[in-house]
């Protein structure tokens, strides 16, 4: 059932460049094609340089000693024995840090309230989650550093823990920061339209509670850093940066008490997956550079998996209490949601991003005359939280799409039909939802939701799937179908930088402020440049992720790289092309439109002897020509799609077998169909983890029960079926001249929704909690 590789991704048919340049000679590897990736060669040969592969002369190794308690007080850390141990160079605790460690700031969606719950690099007298850093041991090898870490004497005195978000807001709850008088780190309410009036007119009101379990990004490469301080120039270099090197350079500079960011260089090496968690500023991002300055030695630190599952951002844990009001023909009147978001022991760099996205995007692709969304984000004695692929949306798509199916069941309306009746019409774009995401209005930029539904129903043979569902299955197996319609978002952080340099050899270097997290940014930016500069893909090199080489950048997150970074590359490329052609036009006494640019130079179409070489064209600039661009876009793009799940459920074992899965997605414009499909299929696999398998669980004292891959279950090839993907380009974004929207999160966004709807359909029981592990499925089947 694997779809055709390039299915549905037709080439762009409109004039997309506002300046009017129309490039025909982007070569065979321009926008809309799928050239082989530029990234692959070293990676398949084992010649990549991930952070643990990178070495510096004289480097030593750090081990972070972490709290074994979820909540405890301590007064002393005795490091005598550790300091005397073989190979130990230093042991660092909070008292060694300036100001005993300055709080790590949020970088987005912050408010004054949440700033009371920030994490300091090392715990100072109180630990608030199992895994919180309390000391750093520096030794000649990692083995010796870990040995010495066990010799630290810390007089922990356990405190009461609070783990569940409902318990955290109870009047007698233990408080993580008693001076604040609350565990609520942040709250926000959006209210649009006359809510009471809408509920008053309802034929049917359904009230339901939904829970999404804590799970997270868990990239296969754990985090790691190598820091080196040059005392002569008083400057610091940190390798192992990811996602947002320039942003983190600023944070590190400020935490060090410096003013001049140019004293700090962050360098991205190969990155073994990000998915939201890697690359945020964590305690270690301060501690390892600090240790390098203090010891005068390059200091390396690589997280092990057990640390990764206790220390790196977790996500998704929410409890929603939601009400929907409908007319009996299925028309939606109002939606009201109040939810708790468990952000863990501290507010980390994302601030209120995750619950903010949930509350601002719960309305989805439907018309709601009235909407109220309200959250409280609470602290508990669990690992701190942050974003994970499709943050806030995986959760609310499950909530909303499940609630709609429950309503459809009550009203006796087909689940597809009830959605169709309420989709935002194609004439209503741009559509202002009325909510804000981190100050940005949620205005759906473009869409044709019903068209995508029709295309998907046909492409995935929905009628055939319904017949399959109704055929009798053997062995007590029950079959179910489920769909989830979702709106995604792309491109917060409203600017991106690009510089294109062409040398007289005909080689092009593209510098970008976006970075690589494995998604193929070198490949797609080279394609964009090939199309708009008009030189071959093979001659273009993309450079990213080094703050010493690239003056500014916002990085790669929130499906933003193509939309902002890609557009900056496009505009710089196009300006360079125009400059070259205009210069050549003068030299050749021809119109720019009659000229062709090649790696050798510019010639007149049809008269190759009338030519001017690149040597000559670039001689005034010393053999190089450069163009920079800073693309700014204040608004978000909103791609959209539909997930279809067909499942077989075994009530006896609780197993959910995904018989077929399909994703339809309107991406606005597709730069590389194979890579987009790769993003969707990979994202889907992560969604299956969230729907069926993955859960960070804790015992009653806050001890993590899922600190290895034997307990935290990532999907294997046996759990992930082939996925059929339909990519459409019916609603290009009007917000950028490429017309693109993001690709990164569509595969994950509605997996929980579609699978839960399918399992509900199979069992005739309403799923209200994830994950659908065997135990929960058996409970549902028993009714």
């Amino acid at each position, binding site marked *: 059932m*694997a779809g055709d590789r390039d299915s549905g991704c037709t080439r762009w048919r409109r004039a997309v460049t506002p300046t009017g340049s129309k490039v025909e000679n982007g070569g065979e590897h321009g926008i809309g094609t*799928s050239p*082989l*990736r530029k*990234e*692959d*060669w070293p*990676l*398949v*040969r*084992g*010649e*990549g*340089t*991930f952070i*643990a*592969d990178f070495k510096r002369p004289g480097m030593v190794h750090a081990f972070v000693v972490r709290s074994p308690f979820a909540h405890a007080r301590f007064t002393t850390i005795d490091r005598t024995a550790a300091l005397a141990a073989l190979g130990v160079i230093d042991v660092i605790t909070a008292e060694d840090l300036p100001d005993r460690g300055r709080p790590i700031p949020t970088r987005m969606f912050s408010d004054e309230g949440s700033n009371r719950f920030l994490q300091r690099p090392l715990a100072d007298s109180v630990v608030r989650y199992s895994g919180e850093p309390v000391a750093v041991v520096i030794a000649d090898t990692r*083995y010796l550093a870990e040995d010495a870490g066990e010799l630290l004497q810390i007089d922990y005195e356990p405190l009461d823990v609070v783990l569940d978000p409902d318990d955290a807001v109870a009047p007698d709850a233990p408080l993580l920061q008693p001076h604040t008088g609350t565990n609520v780190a942040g709250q926000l309410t959006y209210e649009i339209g006359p809510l009471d009036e809408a509920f008053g007119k309802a034929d049917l009101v359904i009230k339901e509670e939904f829970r999404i379990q804590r799970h997270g990004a*868990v*990239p*296969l*490469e*754990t985090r790691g850093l190598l820091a080196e301080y040059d005392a002569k120039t008083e400057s610091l270099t940190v390798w192992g940066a990811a996602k947002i090197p320039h942003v983190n350079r600023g944070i590190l500079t400020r935490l060090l008490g410096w003013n001049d960011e140019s004293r700090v260089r962050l360098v991205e090496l*190969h*990155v*073994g*997956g990000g*998915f939201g968690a890697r690359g945020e500023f964590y305690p270690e991002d301060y501690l390892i550079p600090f240790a390098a300055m203090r010891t005068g030695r390059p200091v390396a630190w690589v997280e*092990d*998996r057990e640390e990764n599952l206790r220390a790196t951002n977790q996500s998704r844990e929410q409890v929603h209490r939601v009400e929907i009001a409908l007319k009996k023909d299925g028309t939606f009147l109002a939606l009201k949601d109040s939810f708790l978001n468990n952000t863990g022991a501290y507010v980390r760099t994302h601030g209120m991003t995750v619950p903010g996205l949930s509350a601002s995007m719960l309305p989805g692709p439907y018309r709601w005359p009235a909407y109220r969304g309200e959250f409280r984000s609470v602290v508990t004695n669990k690992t701190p939280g942050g974003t994970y692929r499709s943050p806030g949306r995986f959760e609310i798509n499950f909530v909303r799409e499940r609630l709609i199916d429950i309503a459809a069941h009550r009203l006796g309306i087909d689940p597809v039909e009830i959605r169709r009746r309420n989709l935002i019409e194609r004439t209503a774009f741009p559509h202002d939802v009325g909510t804000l995401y981190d100050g940005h209005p949620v205005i759906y930029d473009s869409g044709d939701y019903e068209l995508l539904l029709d295309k998907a129903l046909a492409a995935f043979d929905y009628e055939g799937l319904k017949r399959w569902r109704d055929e009798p299955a053997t062995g007590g197996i029950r079959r179910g179908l489920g769909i989830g319609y979702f709106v995604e978002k792309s491109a917060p952080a409203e600017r991106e930088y690009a510089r294109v340099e062409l040398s007289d050899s005909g080689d092009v270097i593209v510098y970008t402020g976006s970075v690589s*997290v*494995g*998604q*193929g940014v070198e490949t797609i930016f080279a394609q964009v440049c090939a199309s708009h500069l008009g030189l071959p893909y093979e001659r273009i090199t993309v450079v990213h992720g080094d703050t010493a080489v690239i003056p500014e950048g916002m990085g790669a997150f929130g499906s933003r790289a193509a939309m902002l970074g890609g557009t900056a590359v496009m505009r710089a490329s196009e300006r360079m092309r125009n400059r070259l052609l205009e210069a050549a036009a003068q030299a050749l006494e021809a119109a720019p439109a009659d000229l062709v640019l090649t790696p050798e130079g510019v010639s007149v179409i049809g008269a190759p002897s009338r030519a001017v070489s690149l040597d000559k064209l670039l001689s005034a600039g010393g053999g190089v020509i450069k163009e920079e661009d800073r693309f700014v876009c204040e608004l978000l793009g909103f791609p959209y799609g539909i997930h279809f799940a067909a499942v077989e459920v075994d009530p006896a074992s609780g197993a959910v077998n995904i018989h077929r899965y399909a994703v339809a997605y309107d991406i606005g414009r597709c730069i590389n169909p*194979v*890579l987009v499909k*790769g993003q969707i*299929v*990979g*994202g*889907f*696999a*992560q969604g299956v983890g969230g729907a069926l398998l993955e859960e960070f669980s804790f015992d009653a004292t806050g001890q993590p029960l899922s600190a*290895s*891959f*034997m307990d935290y279950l*990532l999907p*294997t*090839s*046996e759990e*992930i079926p*082939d*996925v059929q993907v339909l990519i459409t380009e019916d609603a290009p974004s009007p917000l950028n001249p490429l017309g693109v929207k993001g690709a990164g999160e569509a*595969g994950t966004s509605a997996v929980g929704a579609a699978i839960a709807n399918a399992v509900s359909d199979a069992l005739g029981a309403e799923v209200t909690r994830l994950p659908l592990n065997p135990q929960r499925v058996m409970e549902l089947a028993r009714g």
Partner: protein
Amino acid sequence: MNRTISVEINGRVFEGEVEPRLLLGDFIRDNASLTGTHFGCEHGVCGACTVQLDGQPVRSCLMFAVQANGRRIATVEGMAPSADTLHPLQQAFHESHALQCGFCTPGILMTMEAFLRDDPDPTPERIRSALAGNLCRCTGYQNIIEAVRLAADRQKDTTAS
């Protein structure tokens, strides 16, 4: 307490004095400087550190270096025949977009290379099953299965002609 060991890796002999507790993977990465073998979990689940020991895939995080004394190891660095060509399986991964971040890829290549020797013409189902001991967080596995099938097809064509 340290032991002197001698291990042949990709046809070259590496000798070293090691602690008995040193993991084979650390020996490969640090003593032999072959960093293509990656640690993803260090408890034998993810398969990123898979190498071949006397031709059989093993997890280099679940063996001590001393246990490999006198044995023959193959790692991902030994696969490609030259600096400018790839092993057919590596080439198939490249052409099938069977990797994104590439961190798990070396372990998967070592597992699948041995698998194709045992089962040169596998069905997708058998590939799926053989792949189940290697975690990939990026691709969703679909393209990896296609890549292995592509390599098998090409191998068949070569043998036939």
